[in-house]
């Protein structure tokens, strides 16, 4: 077995002490997270391909900000974002989740707004008093895109540009074919647990042997790596990445074999088999530096946490975004979206059906512990958790948030 890595000691600023529970439930801490983190960072909103044509729009809610946002494709091809709030009497302007329009009309009194958010028409406008049409247009929110992913920023001041905010990650995925992948499915789950309780459950591989012992089989462990130790981690100022070990010799059930045969993309496999390479000509050196950065054959996928709450998974032939949205200190909404190359045959869709059901089953496993743990935090048994070296990303996540909240405003 390879020498035990020590990611934690190698990370400046991290100690090895227990991590306190209170950030998982404290109301003041929660409010500060909203005001100082969620209101000041770029938040995942969807993909450019969700609104391909001028006039296309999507409506996205952001629970921590108690905000609904319209993102609309402009005539010049750019995308603009607005609070979905009528500047007249606060009604929600657009009720649908997506569509195509030339203008948005409020259903309350009929105020209408252009794709650019500008106030177009006010019925019986003469009855108002010095109406400032500019100030009573839809209120803009900063929006920018990266790898075809759209991010918005609710900061009251002009935020750091998206590229600067991404830092080391900005060019790590240049060429990664996410824009060519189709949105295959979405899973939305409301849970009675703090958003970090859920996020932390997905930021380590230590749980795989026990929690996914049956479903994952030997996909993430082997004789050489019985605990599925991570291939590597990269901890940045706020973001972080981890690379999951994958067993190149993993076994497959009959249905998983059919999945591979019909779809030519395995669910979780460290895809290095000839069948896949023949169809996609994949070689590690063709990968962007941020995908399987260690260039190892025993690799499954990477998780990149785009601070504060969006996990972006990179793998060979599929990708996932999973956002953890705080609703209250002890409730959250989890939104996962799965992307893959669109099947070109009916068989491909039948193969993907196995991917779909495996993702769903594993999600039921992943989400099974978080409410039980949340409900135990104030039982008085303990007030902190101990974390192993393989949970260093969880430790880093708590460290970054505490540091940010302790800074002077």
């Amino acid at each position, binding site marked *: 077995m390879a020498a035990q890595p020590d990611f934690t000691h190698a990370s400046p600023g991290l100690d090895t002490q227990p991590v306190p529970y209170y950030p998982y439930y404290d109301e003041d801490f929660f409010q500060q997270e909203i005001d100082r983190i969620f209101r000041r960072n770029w938040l995942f909103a969807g993909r450019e391909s969700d609104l391909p044509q001028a006039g296309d729009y999507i409506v996205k809610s952001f629970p921590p900000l108690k905000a609904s946002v319209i993102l609309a494709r402009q005539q010049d091809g750019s995308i603009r974002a607005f609070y979905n709030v009528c500047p007249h009497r606060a009604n929600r302007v657009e009720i649908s989740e997506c569509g195509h329009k030339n203008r948005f009309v409020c259903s309350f009194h009929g105020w209408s707004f252009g794709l650019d958010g500008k106030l177009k028409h006010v019925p019986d406008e003469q009855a108002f008093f010095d109406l400032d049409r500019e100030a009573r247009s839809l209120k803009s929110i900063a929006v920018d895109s990266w790898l075809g992913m759209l991010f918005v920023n609710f900061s009251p001041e002009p935020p750091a540009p998206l590229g600067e905010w991404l830092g080391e990650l900005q060019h790590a995925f240049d060429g990664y074919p996410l824009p060519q992948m*189709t*949105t*295959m*499915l*979405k*899973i*939305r*789950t*409301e849970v009675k647990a703090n958003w970090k309780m859920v996020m932390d459950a997905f930021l380590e591989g230590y749980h795989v042997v026990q929690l996914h012992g*049956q*479903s994952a*089989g030997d996909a993430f462990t082997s004789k050489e790596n019985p605990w599925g130790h991570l291939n590597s981690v990269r901890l940045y100022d706020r973001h972080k990445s981890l690379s999951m070990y994958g067993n190149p010799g993993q076994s497959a*059930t*009959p*249905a998983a074999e*059919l*999945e591979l045969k*019909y779809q030519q993309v395995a669910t979780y496999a460290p895809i290095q088999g000839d069948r896949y390479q023949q169809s996609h000509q994949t070689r590690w050196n063709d990968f962007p530096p941020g995908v399987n950065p260690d260039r190892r054959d025993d690799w499954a996928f990477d998780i990149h946490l785009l601070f504060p709450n969006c996990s972006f998974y990179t793998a060979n032939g599929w990708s996932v975004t999973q956002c953890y949205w705080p609703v209250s200190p002890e409730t959250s909404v989890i939104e996962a979206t799965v992307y893959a190359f*669109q*099947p*070109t*045959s*009916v*068989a*491909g*869709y*039948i*193969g993907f*059906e*196995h991917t*779909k*059901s*495996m993702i*769903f*089953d594993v*999600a*039921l*496993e992943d*989400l*099974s512990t978080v*409410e039980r743990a949340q409900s135990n935090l104030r039982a008085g048994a303990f007030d902190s958790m101990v974390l192993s070296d393989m949970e260093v990303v969880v430790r880093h996540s708590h460290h970054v948030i505490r540091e940010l909240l302790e800074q002077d405003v």
Partner: protein
Amino acid sequence: MSEPISTPLPESFADLSGYVDAWAKPTFRERYRQRMDSPQAALVAFYQALLPRMDAITEHLNQYAPGEVPAADLPLYFLACSFMDIAAAVEIYEQPDVPLGLEWWRPELTECRTALDA
């Protein structure tokens, strides 16, 4: 809830007709609910009937492009999807549901793309 599918299977798949009522369901959620509502013995029987027929089914359906599967062949497509959706219950869990898992009805799964889409 959608209407039960009454279309018979193509003649060469008549041996699977007995599974149409229970398993030819058009959405993941309906198929997964059927998995949850079925005794394990019924899942095993369905699995064993479908496994040796899956290659023939996909070969038959592959004569159509996605989005162009005729209505008469949709029950066959949904049976194949059901096989994929219940396989883990037979091959892995040996019970219909995920042991100790979150309640299955809580995550809302939206299928953005299926073979019914072009």
